[in-house]
């Protein structure tokens, strides 16, 4: 026998193209460039405009197939999230003047959309549009996942659905359920979505008990290695090898040997330690727009040249504001190198999905003791931040020790 199927709505035309929410704190976005023109036939999934937020420029895809109506919001205009930017009409449909005056207000046009999806954390699973939610849901963010307002249908784009239980939970947690990504059909916000968001909220507010370990490492060996490898890498990839690249390799190796440093605290079910399956290193980069942390995926499997090339590519994209949300997601460990500034060492704050992170200060000549004599050698201070729920001081020290070991004897990487 069949079960009654849920009503998933109709894909009634015309379909709104709205300003998507691309980050947790995003409130407005700028239409940077229209890639399609009024009247042009567009296919669902085809990129039709570029949107800039404070950190990223993203391509927005057409949520439906049809012809593009008037471009309501022009290039360079900054509008609140949820604003209707244009409409897509089915064959035979006429554009009406409803579009005129079409910025709408965030409360009316669309309920505030949702943050871009978080990491595809293997322990927590990914949230996204599922089979069986009617197939009507399209992703407005390339490579991202469906957000509630991506649902097709005139008028339907204004509603976010939620179960009563989810709203109740949100009330109890002091959350606005409108801001929670929904994993149910039609993007319905359901209980587990709210619980997850509540967990993250507590995590983000720094409930992780941090402790810090510092060490000073001799940098001459690593600098020397860099000198020797510089031409080889440049010939291979056209990229200038940096100490950071070597640090990436070192940290990736050390993480492979010390999984607790590549883990996270999962508050679900009373709390447990989750070990990440992969090593995705986030490397913090300073840009005009501030600090961004693109991710080198599976860094432990990369050769040095590959690391250099990817690092260079990501940094370039970051500086140009062309990082995709995928580039920014999923890091299991972060390496922050503020060596180019006059910072000797610093204590970084952990991200919720990580149990540790390494901050590296500048390489500078400092007095060191060698066989009882004071000499001057280049050193760097490395500081490890740890989540005490996942690592204790011994584990932290062991990991840090290994990192320092590899910095001072980088040829060990060959073994």
């Amino acid at each position, binding site marked *: 026998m069949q*079960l*009654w199927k849920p009503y998933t709505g109709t894909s009634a035309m015309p379909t709104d193209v709205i300003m998507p929410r691309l980050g947790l704190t995003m409130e407005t976005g700028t239409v940077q460039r229209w890639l399609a023109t009024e009247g042009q036939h567009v296919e669902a999934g085809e990129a039709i405009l570029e949107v800039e937020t404070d950190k990223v420029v993203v391509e927005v895809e057409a949520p439906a197939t049809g012809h593009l109506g008037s471009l309501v919001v022009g290039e360079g205009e900054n509008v609140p999230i949820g604003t209707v930017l244009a409409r897509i009409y089915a064959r035979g449909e006429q554009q009406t003047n409803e579009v005129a005056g079409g910025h709408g207000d965030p409360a009316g046009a669309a309920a505030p959309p949702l943050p871009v999806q978080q990491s595809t954390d293997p322990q927590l699973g990914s949230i996204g549009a599922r089979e069986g939610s009617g197939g009507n849901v399209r992703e407005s963010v390339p490579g991202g996942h469906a957000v509630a307002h991506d649902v097709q249908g005139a008028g339907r784009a204004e509603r976010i659905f939620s*179960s*009563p239980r*989810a709203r*109740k939970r949100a009330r109890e947690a002091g959350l606005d359920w409108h801001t929670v990504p929904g994993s149910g059909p039609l993007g319905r916000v359901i209980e587990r979505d709210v619980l997850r968001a509540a967990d993250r909220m507590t995590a983000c507010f720094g409930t992780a008990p941090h402790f810090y370990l510092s060490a000073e490492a001799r940098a001459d060996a690593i600098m020397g290695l860099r000198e020797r490898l510089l031409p080889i890498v440049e010939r291979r990839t056209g990229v200038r090898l940096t100490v950071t690249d070597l640090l990436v390799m070192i940290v990736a190796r050390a993480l492979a040997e010390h999984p607790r440093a590549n883990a996270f605290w999962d508050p679900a079910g009373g709390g447990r330690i989750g070990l990440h399956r992969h090593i995705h290193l986030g490397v913090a980069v300073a840009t005009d727009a501030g600090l961004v942390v693109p991710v080198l995926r599976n860094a432990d499997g990369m050769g040095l040249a590959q690391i250099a090339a990817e690092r260079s590519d990501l940094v370039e994209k970051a500086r140009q504001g062309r990082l995709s949300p995928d580039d920014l997601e999923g890091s299991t460990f972060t390496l922050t190198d503020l060596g180019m500034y006059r910072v000797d060492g610093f204590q970084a704050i952990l991200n919720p999905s990580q149990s540790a992170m390494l901050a590296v200060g500048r390489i500078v000549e400092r007095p060191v003791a060698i066989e009882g004599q004071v000499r001057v050698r280049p050193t760097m201070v490395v500081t490890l931040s740890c989540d005490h729920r996942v690592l204790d001081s011994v584990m932290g020290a062991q990991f840090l020790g290994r990192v320092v070991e590899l910095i001072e004897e980088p040829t060990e990487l060959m073994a």
Partner: protein
Amino acid sequence: MREIQYRDALNEALNEEMARDPRVFVLGEDVGRYGGVLQITRGLLDKYGEKRVRDTPISEAGIMGVAVGAAMTGMRPVAEIMYIDFSALAMDQIANQAAKAHYMFGGKARVPLVMRTQGGGGRGNAAQHSQSLEMWFVHVPGLIVVQPSTPYDAKGLLKSAIRDDNPVIFIEHKLLYSTTGPVPEEEYLIPIGVADVKREGKDVTIVATSRMVLFALAAADTLRQRGIEAEVIDPRTLKPLDLETIVTSVQKTGRLVVVNEGALTGGFTAEVAARVQRAAFDWLDAPILQVASEDVPLPYSGVLELEAIPSEQDIVNAALEALYWN
């Protein structure tokens, strides 16, 4: 504890109540000499004689008419209608007379009768011998409707039904008669109007009646293998319904699947869903799902019949849907 069959549990209940109260008598087709088509009343004729174990002609309206009149004048009849499908022939007596006498006559008349009958499909008995018509009776004010799913429930509830001063429609299931279960030797009663949590769980509530209770329990085992703990509730009395037990469960799990073998439209699952969404709206994380028979007369062909009535897999699927797992 000893394990006995559902049919024997019923037989014991009848025997005990007839011994206890001389006003209790049984009437129906083939109940006396033959011992009952499904042998529920066997042995009673020898013990209590032909006036208290009355074989009747094939006259369903007559059987229920006599039951109502006897009940109104001091007796406690237990009338057997062989198949619930045949109750249609007696609907005036049941719905217009039995259900209404106490109210219509200002509270003085009492109709302490029990109509024992059985329904359900799965044996290829086809459309006129396989129905689950509990809702016909649930819908009439003044009737009590009971559906036991286990031998333990059957005995305890039949005794209570006989002792109740209201007309009770006691609906057994043809495929439950041979099932066995633990039944105490000592006397016990199960109160009318109290549901039974047959299995505890925290992830999804499954309310099921009659034979569907067994399917629901099997579905719960299957769900457990996937890490889902289902709570199975057997209302036992469909009217008056123990809504509180169901609501308490839904407040815990946030999810409800209702299973009943009657046809979907206007069925018991719709009644429960409507009540629960009103009482527990804020605790629901997903729509309430109904698992019921297709809106078709039940076909003879085994393959088609299986398709028409709910299966364990249907219940599993519904639970998964309620959990957003599919």
